[in-house]
């Protein structure tokens, strides 16, 4: 049984311009103790995907469309009661956010905020609870934790605040950690430290990790598997090393080309032209076609399906088994056989 199994997740938001189909049919699998990276530009629906797992889309859980399925260790989370959802939040699935500066409540001490999580998800109270807070803060690398727990968030640097967020996330001993762009707001030097901390903690505690980032490099350092998201849909997925070695989707290639890597100095920097379209009106056909350099006429009219690349294992009616090794992509260029005829 996998830790997290998402099928056809659609989260649509009501916005002034209409209905934003920001997450629009996403499949994702994560095994126990596994690490998956979700990559995409801003506007591709990454953050909303993460919030949907916790039942926290901005307008409430009702924005997750019927027919979506999020299974956590086999338990369906879509439509589950509020009480169970609250137990899962923090206790089973914890999340850390992009902005450590604003994600901590400015008027409570960091100790209070970590302790709140400890109190919610463990039976530790009083002195024991306090000691647990000190232990957690020490574990994430905050020096002199018993003194610093009495400080307020504004007295911490960005990196230290993100460590506090991690300590808070670990308080409930979760089995899955979702990290939404945990290092984007931080300095490059701090970024490496925080990533190391996340990776080290994940391995030590045997948690599953869903790391969300706009940066392929960040994700490739930490994750075994990669899911590339564009316009609310998965366009490519597979083991990290394989995807990076031979990206199949033009968008993935674009993401790789839009950064300069040291060993790739011969190639020039090629950013993807344009930006992600509005979620209220995705383009017809392949959603990437207006920005794609390799477009063929068919891309404009019909959208390709997300299909396994090599016919490695003859799929039995589209049912997907343990997916760690399977590579998939959604592009017409990968063979005329596709198209779900």
């Amino acid at each position: 049984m996998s830790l997290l199994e998402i099928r056809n997740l659609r989260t649509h938001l009501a916005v002034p311009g209409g209905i934003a189909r920001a997450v629009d049919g996403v499949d994702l699998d994560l095994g126990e103790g596994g690490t998956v990276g979700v990559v995409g530009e801003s506007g591709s629906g990454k953050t909303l995907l993460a919030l949907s797992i916790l039942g926290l889309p901005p307008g409430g859980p009702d924005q997750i469309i019927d027919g979506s399925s999020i299974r956590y260790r086999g338990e369906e989370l879509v439509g589950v009661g509020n009480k169970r959802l609250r137990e899962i939040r923090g206790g089973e699935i914890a999340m850390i956010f992009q902005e450590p500066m604003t994600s901590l409540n400015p008027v409570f001490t960091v100790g209070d905020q970590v302790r709140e999580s400890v109190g919610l998800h463990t039976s530790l109270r009083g002195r024991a609870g306090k000691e647990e807070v000190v232990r957690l803060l020490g574990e994430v690398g905050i020096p002199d934790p018993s003194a610093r727990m009495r400080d307020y968030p504004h007295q911490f640097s960005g990196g230290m605040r993100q460590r506090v967020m991690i300590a808070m996330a670990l308080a409930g001993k979760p089995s899955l950690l979702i990290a939404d762009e945990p290092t984007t707001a931080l300095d490059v030097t701090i970024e490496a430290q925080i990533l190391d901390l996340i990776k080290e903690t994940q391995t030590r505690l045997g948690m599953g990790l869903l790391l969300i980032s706009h940066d392929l490099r960040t994700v490739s350092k930490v994750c075994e598997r990669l899911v590339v998201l564009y316009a609310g849909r998965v366009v490519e997925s597979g083991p990290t090393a394989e995807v990076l070695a031979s990206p199949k989707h033009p968008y993935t290639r674009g993401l790789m080309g839009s950064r300069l890597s040291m060993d790739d100095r011969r190639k020039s920097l090629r950013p993807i032209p344009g930006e992600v379209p509005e979620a209220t009106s995705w383009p017809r056909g392949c959603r990437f076609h207006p920005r794609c350099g390799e477009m063929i006429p068919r891309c404009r009219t019909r959208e390709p399906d997300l299909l396994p690349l090599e016919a490695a294992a003859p799929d039995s009616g589209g049912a997907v088994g343990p997916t760690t090794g399977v590579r998939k992509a959604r592009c017409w260029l990968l063979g005329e056989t596709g198209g779900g005829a």
Partner: protein
Amino acid sequence: MRSLVFRRTLTAIPLLLGVATLVFFALSLAPGDPATLFYPIGASPEVLDQLRRSLGLDDPLLVRYFKWLLGCLTGDFGVSLSPRYYQLPVRDVILGVLPNTLLLAGCSLFLAFVVGSLVGVFQATRQGSLIDSVLSGCTLFFYSVPSFWLAVMLGMFFSVKAEAFWGWPVFFPASGVASPGADSLSTWGQVLDRAHHLFLPCLTLTLVMAGGIARYVRTSMLEVVRQDYIRTARAKGLPESRVILKHGLRNGLIPVVTLFGAYFPILLSGTVLIEYVFTWPGMGRLMVDSVLARDYPVVLGGTFLFGAAVVVGNLLADLLYGVVDPRIRDAHG
């Protein structure tokens, strides 16, 4: 924190000096002789002369100014000229009515902030619903209504009409601080009697101020519930009620503390009119009576006290701000 208290207190001192100066020159630089402006009607020239001497009006302006500043410092504002308090020191006149105003203003301010905050928070949690719209209409009405008219209307319903038609349980007295003969009541009876008299003035002031406070709190809370830390609190697994009441409210009420400073002068303006309507013998009533009776020293002393009260109120609000917001505390610490 201690340094914040020190710095803020230090800035209040020149402000108080400015207040005293403005009051003095507003009344001294008026066209004509202050003695003739404020003389008891029908006074003879000899009386006027004597008055001028006793007020020290024959001194040069600067001498009078420094005497006045010294008076402000020691609380010596001279003696009252009104026949009602004749020869009584202004300080005693003011101290005689001050407790009544403190009682009325204190109760109203407290209730206004409690009621206003509750309504505002309630509205924010139900944004866009029918009850939100209805309450928004109510708060806008009370925010716009002139306090004296509301006082007259409430007096009409709960006092005049109630007395005529319904009798005691609904009836609330619309004048004075105590019933005639209240002295003979037991202590508990006197307290009840006082509360009974306090009801209408306090209700009026509370409603008028709560309207504005509720509107402010609603906007402030709507801003807060959009913040990232609210999302963090939810992701922790906190129940929604605690997300709002603990994490939301504590932040949403920070700007309300600054509002406390802004509402102090509004409160005092309000007491002037409300005390007048309900013949509540307090500072506001005293001011109006003294202006009409041309009781120059009392007007001077009373005005200074009103200004000083606002300065002190703002100082308190500033310090309170430091207490509730740790960021401010350190920024100046």
